[in-house]
């Protein structure tokens, strides 16, 4: 039986958009929020049905396709609005609609007092719609619709409280920085079209698979680099990551949606979707891995010293996305997507937990003025801890499993190596430390807020707490879907994994038809004459041991510095003030961009207007008019109106003509 309901997945939230946009203000608040949540729930149900349907099909037939209508179709271009559900998009739609649904439910409580409640939900639904469109699209151009759609929605939602200049500016920054990436992405699409004659994934990938060496490697590399440049914008990688930390200006559920379910994962998804292009452009893959690793470390360093709870989380997202790209860069696309999924759980949990804190603290976001919240907010505290342990990579939490796979591939893949692995491990240490720092400073130690605030601190309402608990369950157990073979040998783990109905690397095997396996990557690289290094489980376990020790060490250091000896962090900072300031000011990258791009650009624009347009071009136009005017003024003197003057002129003229002719 064929599955004909793919179109319902994006349609549900779109209907929600229309309801809330046009009649939302007429509805009671609860209804308006409920409609939005139900719309996403509808997508979730259809998505899960689609996933189950796929699972029921033999492995090589797990592709569902549905075309709706022609979109841009003229000449050689023929793009359709058409959807494809394969293992990769099935996982993505389930994550997007699942996490998205929980965030919607949470928002009903969080935004309860906002005057623009229906508008908020219309935007949230539009966001979900755009992201679902992005992952379901069967061609580059339709993916680009979602790609830009999420940029639009992030613009609208980051700037949701547009009365605040900082919020409006952050929304604008997000859109424009994304657009820089999109410029490259468009060019990448054009290059793909000109090279392969199609924009449909199936056509393009089939052509590459059929004749991998038909297209010069240089072309492939440029295409992949252009696409990846688009991904650096959307997924906040160096050099275009600058918008994401500012994006916390939006309401906290929006941050959760951007960081966990939608938007930033788009770049990773796109690279995984185009894996077949990337594996035929090893240089591009190396760039992906390099940028990913560099971003992971760079963002983690900044995250060490930030004092705004959401800002720390934002940098942790940038850093974790770096891991995902590192995975893609070494050809472990399934591991990258798996980290997308586990990250979605624990990052949504972290943001929504921070939302509960901010809610309780009356919009206070500075962790220096928090502390000891665990006594008032047990649910938030313990769910936040679960997410912290997951992101820090404490064994058997979901983040541990997905991150260790990435690190293992970073070490063992023919494209990886010791350097990548080292960067990854150092980042893991830093991550454990800064997350411990945030958690301890927020929930433990002495309360540092004033009495008035203290009196009002309360646990969030049930609608918000339940969401936290559900996400925590995912953050703990999601890893069992993709247990590495090495760990399966340990009896209790193997037993637990089977209890979840999974076996070793179930998730990666499921994704294999969409994103390939390590063996595929190796084959592609062999064709390009690259060495393959043999690997073993023994090494995998040893390296895992190193990361586990470092993660525990990171958390312990956080405990020592922020609970046992609260002054010690400050004395360390004072011992190297330049380093502390460098990190606190985020390596001055925003200032650098302002000085190198924004100011000169604005100056050039002003010069072109005042200097060229007014002083040169228009001045010439006016001068021509003036000169014509002067001449007409001169010649007007000749038009005397006297016949004798005209007669004299005619005679003179005749004489000249005769002289010229007879000369």
């Amino acid at each position, binding site marked *: 039986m064929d599955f004909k309901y793919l179109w319902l997945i994006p349609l549900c939230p779109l209907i929600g958009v229309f309801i809330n946009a046009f009649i939302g203000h007429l509805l009671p608040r609860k209804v308006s929020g409920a409609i939005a949540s139900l719309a996403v729930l509808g997508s979730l149900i259809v998505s899960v049905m689609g996933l189950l349907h796929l699972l029921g099909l033999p492995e090589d037939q797990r592709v569902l396709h549905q075309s709706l209508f022609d979109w841009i179709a003229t000449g050689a271009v023929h793009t359709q609005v058409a959807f494809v559900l394969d293992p990769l998009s099935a996982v993505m739609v389930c994550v997007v609609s699942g996490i998205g649904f929980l965030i919607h439910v949470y928002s009903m409580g969080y935004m309860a007092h906002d005057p623009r409640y229906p508008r908020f939900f219309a935007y949230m639904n539009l966001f979900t719609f755009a992201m679902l469109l992005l992952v379901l699209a069967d061609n580059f151009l339709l993916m680009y619709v979602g790609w830009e759609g999420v940029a639009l929605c992030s613009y609208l939602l980051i700037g949701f409280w547009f009365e605040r*200049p900082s919020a409006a500016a952050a929304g604008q920054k997000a859109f424009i920085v994304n657009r820089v990436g999109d410029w490259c992405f468009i060019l990448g699409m054009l290059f793909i079209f*000109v090279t392969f004659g199609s924009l449909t994934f199936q056509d393009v990938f089939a052509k590459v698979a059929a004749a991998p060496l038909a297209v010069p490697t240089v072309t492939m590399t440029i295409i992949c680099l252009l696409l990846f440049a688009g991904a650096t914008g959307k997924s906040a990688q160096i050099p275009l990551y600058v918008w994401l930390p500012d994006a916390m200006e939006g309401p906290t559920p929006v941050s959760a949606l951007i960081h966990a379910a939608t938007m930033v994962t788009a770049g990773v998804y796109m690279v995984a979707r185009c894996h077949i292009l990337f594996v035929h452009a090893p240089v591009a893959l190396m760039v992906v891995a390099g940028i990913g690793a560099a971003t992971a470390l760079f963002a983690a360093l900044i995250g060490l010293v930030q004092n705004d709870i959401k800002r720390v989380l934002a940098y942790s997202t940038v850093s974790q996305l770096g891991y995902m790209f590192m995975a893609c860069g070494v050809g472990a696309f399934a591991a990258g997507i798996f980290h997308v999924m586990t990250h979605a759980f624990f990052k949504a949990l972290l943001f929504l937990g921070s939302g509960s804190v901010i809610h309780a603290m009356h919009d206070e976001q500075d962790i220096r003025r928090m502390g000891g919240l665990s006594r008032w907010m047990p649910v938030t505290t313990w769910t936040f801890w679960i997410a912290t342990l997951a992101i820090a990579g404490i064994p058997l939490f979901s983040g541990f499993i997905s991150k260790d796979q990435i690190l293992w591939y970073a070490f063992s893949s023919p494209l990886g190596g010791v350097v990548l692995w080292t960067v990854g491990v150092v980042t893991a240490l830093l991550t454990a430390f800064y997350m411990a720092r945030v958690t301890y400073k927020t929930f433990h130690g002495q309360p540092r807020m004033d009495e008035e605030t203290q009196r009002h601190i309360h646990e969030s309402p049930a609608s918000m707490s339940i969401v936290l608990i559900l996400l925590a369950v995912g953050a703990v157990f999601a890893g069992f879907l993709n247990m590495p073979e090495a760990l399966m040998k340990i009896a209790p783990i193997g037993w637990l994994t089977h209890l979840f109905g999974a076996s070793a690397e179930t998730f990666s095997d499921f994704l294999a038809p969409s994103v390939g396996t390590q063996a595929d990557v190796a084959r592609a690289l062999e064709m390009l004459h690259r060495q393959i290094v043999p690997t073993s489980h023994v090494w995998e376990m040893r390296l895992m041991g190193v990361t586990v020790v470092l993660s525990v060490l990171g958390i312990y250091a956080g405990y020592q510095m922020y609970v046992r000896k609260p002054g010690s962090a400050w004395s360390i900072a004072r011992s190297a003030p330049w380093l502390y300031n460098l990190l606190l000011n985020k390596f001055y990258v925003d200032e650098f961009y302002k000085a190198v791009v924004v100011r000169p650009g*604005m100056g050039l624009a002003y010069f*072109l207007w005042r200097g060229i347009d007014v002083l040169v*071009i*228009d001045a010439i136009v006016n001068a021509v008019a003036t000169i014509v005017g002067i001449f007409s003024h001169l010649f007007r003197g000749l038009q005397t109106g006297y016949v004798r003057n005209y007669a004299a002129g005619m005679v003179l003229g005749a004489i000249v003509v005769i002289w010229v002719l007879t000369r």
Partner: protein
Amino acid sequence: MHYNQCILSLLIFLPLAGAAVLPFFPRKAESAAKGFAFVLALITFALSVPLFFLYSSSGAVWQFEVQKPWIQLMGQPALTYHIGLDGISLVMVLLTTFLSAVAILGSFAGIKDRQKEYYALMLLLESAMIGVFCALDLVLFYVFWEAMLIPMYFIIGMWGGQRRIYAAVKFFLYTMVGSLLMLVAILVMVWINFKTTGELTFDLPKLYVMHLTAAAQTLLFLAFALAFAIKVPMFPFHTWLPDAHVEAPTAGSVILAGLLLKMGTYGFLRFCLPLFPNASLHFAPLLVTLAIISIIYGALVALRQPDMKKLVAYTSVSHLGIAMLGIFVFTLEGLQGGVYQMISHGLATGALFLLVGMIYERRHTRQIADYGGIYSVMPKYGAVFIIITMASIGLPFLSGFVGEFLVFLGSWMRNPWYAVLGASTAVLSACYLLWMVQRVLHGPMTNEENKSLLDLSAREIAVLTPLAVGVIFFGVYPKPILERVEPSVLRIVQTVENARQASISPSVPSTESRRTHASPALAQSAEQPDQLEILHTR
């Protein structure tokens, strides 16, 4: 008479008849004048809609064609009343009837004095514009072309702002210089045709197949191109535009940006490319360069404008630069994109001018600095503003994207660097438009006077809704337009391609190689099936 036979003439002369009746309205019944004008424009639009459905993409080159003898010269039927539509002019006529109705409805609040004269001029303008797009006789075309200038001149000069006289004269003289050269070129062309064939005719389809030497093509091309480049306007002939826009009343700007500028791009498509394909090829690098400069320069200058209308005016320079880029890369995708960009720009920029006009009518200022935070008091206004802005930025599933994408695709096929530079508009347009949105709609409400701003009235919603729906619909479903325009655009591409083949073909003798001729395809619908075959095999 059959609809097909009389519809175009009806469209041209119905508004004209209205313009003739309006001056006889008594002064006291002036408010009836605007209702009359609107109803008439609406009827004209309603009459034009069936054209779209009756037009057949696989039909004759010129449809709804009418040719009647008009003036005889030297015993020959030199001038004829020859009108007809191909796919390009079809969509332009529909855009004209639609935007004219919208502009007239949009003037109700802004125009308070000498109303009947104003609406008579608007209808006159509509007639002339429809005439320009329908005319297939060069003299007829030129008459309509010049006839457009006069009502526009008075609309700017009489209902405009402070420096309206300067702006109106500048507009008039600037375009006049171009069109006089064009007139000379028309006469020369007809004369050359008369000398070579012995037939004295101003009929465009007949002239499409004439023989022209390379030198003649060059001179004639330059004369036509200057007239059209001023109209578009292309850098560096654009400085009349910001002045005209700033001084023109709102509806004047809507018509100016939405339709009059398209006369330029339309002119290139209708005359320059098919009549002078060799010269077009020869000058393509120059025009592409100017188009790219227009795109980037217009965007950067727009960025720093303190006056909203001027800002939108410069965005037109940038956006029509994209259309010009698409036209002068001579690929099917590029030309399709160029035509689509014309339509999309008409809708989006028309709406932007209306939006600016609506707050101008409330606050009597267009300075961005006088606003800020008005989204909180005008939520409906803000929502429409953002939709239109996004269409203008080229967000996919809104109309602007379709044209831009096709243009960049077409230009990449010619030269990737064209696309690289042209697509920078993705970043630049976001910069100038979002920055304006931020300063006008967002931020805290700093100016006391803005606190009492009223949100959109029912009439204003009626004006804006069709435009907003249009930019969304044509962004999601461009197919009806693309498939109607495709055969017409393909003919132009083939003409240029044939010329390119002929000029590089070594088998042609050297004396002959300078003598080139356009494809007979343009004049003879008999060749239609072949072209469609080519079309489908692509």
